[in-house]
């Protein structure tokens, strides 16, 4: 029996208004992503891959169509429900790490847990586990500016993991990294799908990065090309 899709996108369109012009970012896209998959979204700039990722992650809304994640049509959630949903179900990894510079690595990882009912001790335990998973257990007290780009991105992955979400979205996670660090980060993301059963959806321009995924989807002019 085939595994249940964790992400179900149907007839999804996104149209932006730029002045007097309507720009079609996504044009009736449909796709399924199965739990544990490492899906790579590729395509040229403006093809709609980041828009699709944002809608799946619940930080953007479609113009029409539906995007269901774990059976929940996220387009139907209001702002507050969507914020709770993101906190509990999605981990984010951005191209430029987006760590808070005044916080230590451990505090950055702890941020999403501040919204939970966990005690301080429970939070610290989860933070330590997440940092161990990315190989930075001994760097928790370092601030981002005391770490390399690769280490910062691993902290960002730990932050994405710490709430134990089913879905991790990564937008060009290796865009600011050297080849070695990029390899480390991609290996961690892949291992998350293989060992922890996480579903990863990653946007990239880089074919080498795409090779780490279990499936690649190419977008062109707002449509899935292959």
């Amino acid at each position, binding site marked *: 029996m085939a595994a249940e899709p964790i992400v179900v996108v149907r007839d999804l369109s996104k149209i932006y208004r730029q002045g007097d012009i309507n720009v079609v970012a996504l044009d009736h896209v449909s796709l399924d992503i199965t739990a544990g998959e490492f899906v790579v979204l590729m395509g040229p700039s403006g093809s709609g891959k980041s828009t699709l990722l*944002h809608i799946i992650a619940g930080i953007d809304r479609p113009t029409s169509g539906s995007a269901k994640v774990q059976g929940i049509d996220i387009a139907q959630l209001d702002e507050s429900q969507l*914020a*709770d949903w993101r906190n*509990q179900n999605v981990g*984010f990894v951005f191209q430029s790490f*987006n760590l808070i510079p*005044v916080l230590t690595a451990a505090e950055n990882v702890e941020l*999403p847990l501040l919204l939970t009912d966990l005690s301080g001790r429970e939070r610290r335990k989860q933070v330590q586990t997440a940092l161990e998973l990315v190989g930075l257990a001994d760097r928790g007290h370092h601030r981002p500016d005391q770490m390399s780009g690769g280490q910062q991105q691993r902290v960002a992955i730990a932050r994405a993991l710490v709430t134990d979400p089913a879905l991790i979205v990564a937008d060009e996670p290796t865009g600011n990294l050297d080849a070695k660090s990029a390899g480390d980060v991609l290996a961690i993301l892949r291992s998350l799908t293989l060992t922890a059963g996480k579903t990863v959806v990653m946007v990239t321009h880089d074919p080498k990065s795409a090779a780490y995924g279990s499936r690649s989807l190419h977008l062109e002019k707002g449509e899935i090309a292959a």
Partner: protein
Amino acid sequence: MTFASFIAKNALRNKRRALLTVVSVAVSCGLLVTLLTLQRELTVPPESEAASLRVIVRNKVSLAQPLPAKQLSVVEKIPGVVAVSPFTYFGGNFREETVTSFAQFAVDPARFRDLIVEGKIADGSYDDFIKDRTSCFVGADTMKRYGLKIGDKMRFTGTIYPVDLDLKILAVFQGTVDDRGVFFHHKLLDELMGNPGTVGTWYLRVASADVANDVIARVDKAFENSSAEVRAETERAFQMGFISMLGNVKMLIGSISAVVVFTLVLVTVSTMSMAIRERFRELAVLKALGFKRTELFGFILAESFGLAALGALVGIGGSWAFWTLIDLQKLTNGFLLYFEVTPRIMATGATVAALLGIVSAIGPALAVARTSVVEGLKTLD
């Protein structure tokens, strides 16, 4: 990590800016408190229970016009009047001073004793003062300020009257709302002036506060249509009349205070806007992680409020300490006797700072709320 430590770290991430914001709020709050205190001191004269029983009678034409001394026999017979004395402002300069730094009044010492009932004899003897018409009765503050003692001479150069005074200190008072004045024999002034038969004002004490208005009406009526019509008023109303000579002090100080507050708003709003604009992407990341608009508004508000509160604490506390510790009489050459930063004024300053903290958070918070996560993430990309 807690929400509080997260907010504190954000507020202090740019230490120089945080310090400058706190200092600007502190200076402005201190200035505001000082202005409000000055306004209070100038527009609300000190009150005492005894002052509520005292009435001053002056010439209806102007305070500068004297009154006939013969009015005394009429005034003292008016029902409700229990004591009356001539009360003539001399306005002399002490020693080599070029300004009048404390008031001198010519009085009838025997009658005057019943008028300043709240005053206590701190040194010397009031009876000696009564007996010697070249003597004077001096406030303890003035004695202390000039290092005077019983038996010392006080020389005044007349600025209103073309005569000088050479008075011997025989009694010292304290315990009144203004322990600076000097009182001397009206007879001495009369002699020096060639017995003109006039007084500056009449100073009365009425039997009770209930009859004060009746006494005022009776005094006014007693000299109606005479060559020297009078205007009687309570001591407080009389003092307020003096204050009105300074112009619309309340409006002037109020206007300056408004400018101070407005400038303060501009400074803090601008600072908070800059601080938040720099962190737009971070705030978008927080939104992506699940923080709601209300929580982000709470962060911004707490940060803004915290900086304003710290500034207010330093400014208001510093202002209170400064005005409590300095010798204001010396600093203002006797113009201001008291400069009390009251709890009410401090509360006003704190309220302004609190409102400031809230107002300066609203703009940045609205901007953050209006910006979607995607727009926010693009901000500094």
